[in-house]
């Protein structure tokens, strides 16, 4: 078990890492942001469906478990990026012939509800990896008055480094069924 002082330090370290990450993305420093990713990163956005609850689970928390809504692995998720694809996305966003990013949208990322779970099992082969939940509110403004708000949760696996962390996994849980914002090709 961690002492509460250690927990508080950890919380601070993760928050500092996330704030810097958000600032890099809002400043469109996408190539610098790539340095925060582990080589084996998996970056996912599952689809989120309207489903019928299993009658056998009625009156239990299982009845409306979030897991029923999220697309299972055999379905195509909205996004499943590896480092190569994230790199293409980062390079594309800085290229002139990438017209949905030129002129670029103005973004502002608010990261909150940071909740490291140091006791959770991060999975096989982990190198002190941590599971961390956080919420985001992302304001997206494009052209003159095309303004949108994104909300969601991030479920990360972070690997502690001498300074900061590497993102080993990120799963983004969006709060939409029909996506009403212009694109999900952003970095959340």
């Amino acid at each position, binding site marked *: 078990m961690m002492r509460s002082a250690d927990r508080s330090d950890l919380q601070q370290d993760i928050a500092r890492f996330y704030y810097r990450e958000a600032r890099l993305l809002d400043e469109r420093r996408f190539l610098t942001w790539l340095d925060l990713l582990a080589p084996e990163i998996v970056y996912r*956005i599952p*689809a989120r*469906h*309207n*489903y*019928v609850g299993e009658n056998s689970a009625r009156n239990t928390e299982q009845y409306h478990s979030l897991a029923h809504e999220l697309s299972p*692995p*055999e*379905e*195509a*998720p*909205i*996004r*499943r*990026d590896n480092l190569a*694809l994230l790199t*293409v*996305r980062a*390079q*594309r966003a800085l*290229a002139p*012939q*990438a*017209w*949905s*990013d030129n002129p670029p949208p103005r973004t502002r990322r608010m990261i909150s509800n940071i909740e490291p779970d140091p006791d959770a099992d991060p999975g096989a082969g982990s190198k002190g990896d941590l599971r961390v939940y956080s919420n985001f509110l992302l304001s997206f403004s494009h052209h003159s008055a*095309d303004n949108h708000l994104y909300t969601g949760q991030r479920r990360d696996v972070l690997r502690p480094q001498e300074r900061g962390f590497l993102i080993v996994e990120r799963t983004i849980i969006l709060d939409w*069924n*029909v*996506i*009403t914002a*212009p*694109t*999900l*090709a952003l970095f959340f």
Partner: protein
Amino acid sequence: MKPLPPLVNQDASFVSRRVFTDGDVYRREQQRIFARSWLYLAHESELKEKGDFVTGFLGETPVIAARGQDGAIHVSVNSCTHRGLPVCRAERGHAARFICPYHNWTYALDGRLLAVPQQALTHTQIDKGALGLRRVTRVESYRGLVFASLDDGIQPLDQYLGNMRFYLDNYFDRFPGGVQVIGPPHKWRIAANWKLPVENQLGDVGHGPFLHGFIMRNNSATTEINEFGLNVVPEPGHGAAIRLFPEGTDSETVMWGSENGSARMFSAETQAYLREVQDQLAGRLGPVHARIKGLTFGVYPNFSFLWANSVIRVSHPRAPGQVDYWSWWVVPADAPPAVKCELQSLYNASFGPAGLFEQDDSEAWSQQYLGSAIEQLDDQPYFYGLGLGEEQPHPLLPGKVGTSFNEHYARAFYLRWKRDIESAGDDARPDGEAR
């Protein structure tokens, strides 16, 4: 309705901006196109067992497609005959019956009204036979693709597709075990007119190297399109953009799954699977099919298919400047699970709401709507005349065939569209209400 201003000229080389923005045009489209065409709804692989259902739309009309106890696919309008609430709230599932949450009126999978809970308490005689969900009586499939029509008198689907069947076969009959459509679809809303996505995928190959310049400049797809690309109008309103390789081209180049070197990034198992499918294709579908590498297909009015990316799309109109775009991933049903998993990248790296291509398309379609809404430019219709008159019959391919950048796919679409919206509407018929 008031008479419409001229919208499409005689050969459709000019199309008015109002076609995309006018409210009267939009209403006419609902009545004269979406109520009278075959519209894609689901794939048979989504409705395997009795009781399986999906919900969808025929234009703006919400419907349920369900496999009934009789084994047939039934389509009903998803609105209770008592107070109008949807009787099914999920995108897919398995059910024995549909129950309206308001007063629990209960319907069978085929839409028949089964029970009205308070009927006995009120001693009311109810003609249940007349109070079922509105049935969509015309439901037909082609190669597993289920289409439905709100028009009881529409021609059979086979006839409606005509020469388009040849091109649909190229994908939907390609795999020995058939295809499997993985639903529910991804859904996103675009501030655009529904026809822009349709037009784009009927055969607008020309925007590729420009709008998608970062990806498509100097890649092998662009080279192949320049060298072997053809733009086919199988029937007016339908479209098929393809590459037709010379006889003797190696399997690796032509095969499905091999786009811009993508196949080389797959595991040996996936590569072997893709090659085997290609090597059997000439025997299975004929030698011409084995030389075809598809790009985009379209079925009038709003079904599209991206061949290389293996994804079905439907453009659902919501308002002149609003479309709900739905996108279903398709896989070869008999591919091993690991192969299917790898094939996901053909779809969602490029298309879907986060796709590298899609992000530029969606934005361009929204920008086109803004341009179309400029009233002062009513006298400046859009030019659709590239390649006018260049299209010809072809010795190997059914339909009219032009070079890749010939815009005849759009001209044929808008001529059919014009004929449809100018046809007599229900409002012009004395028995209009009874239809």
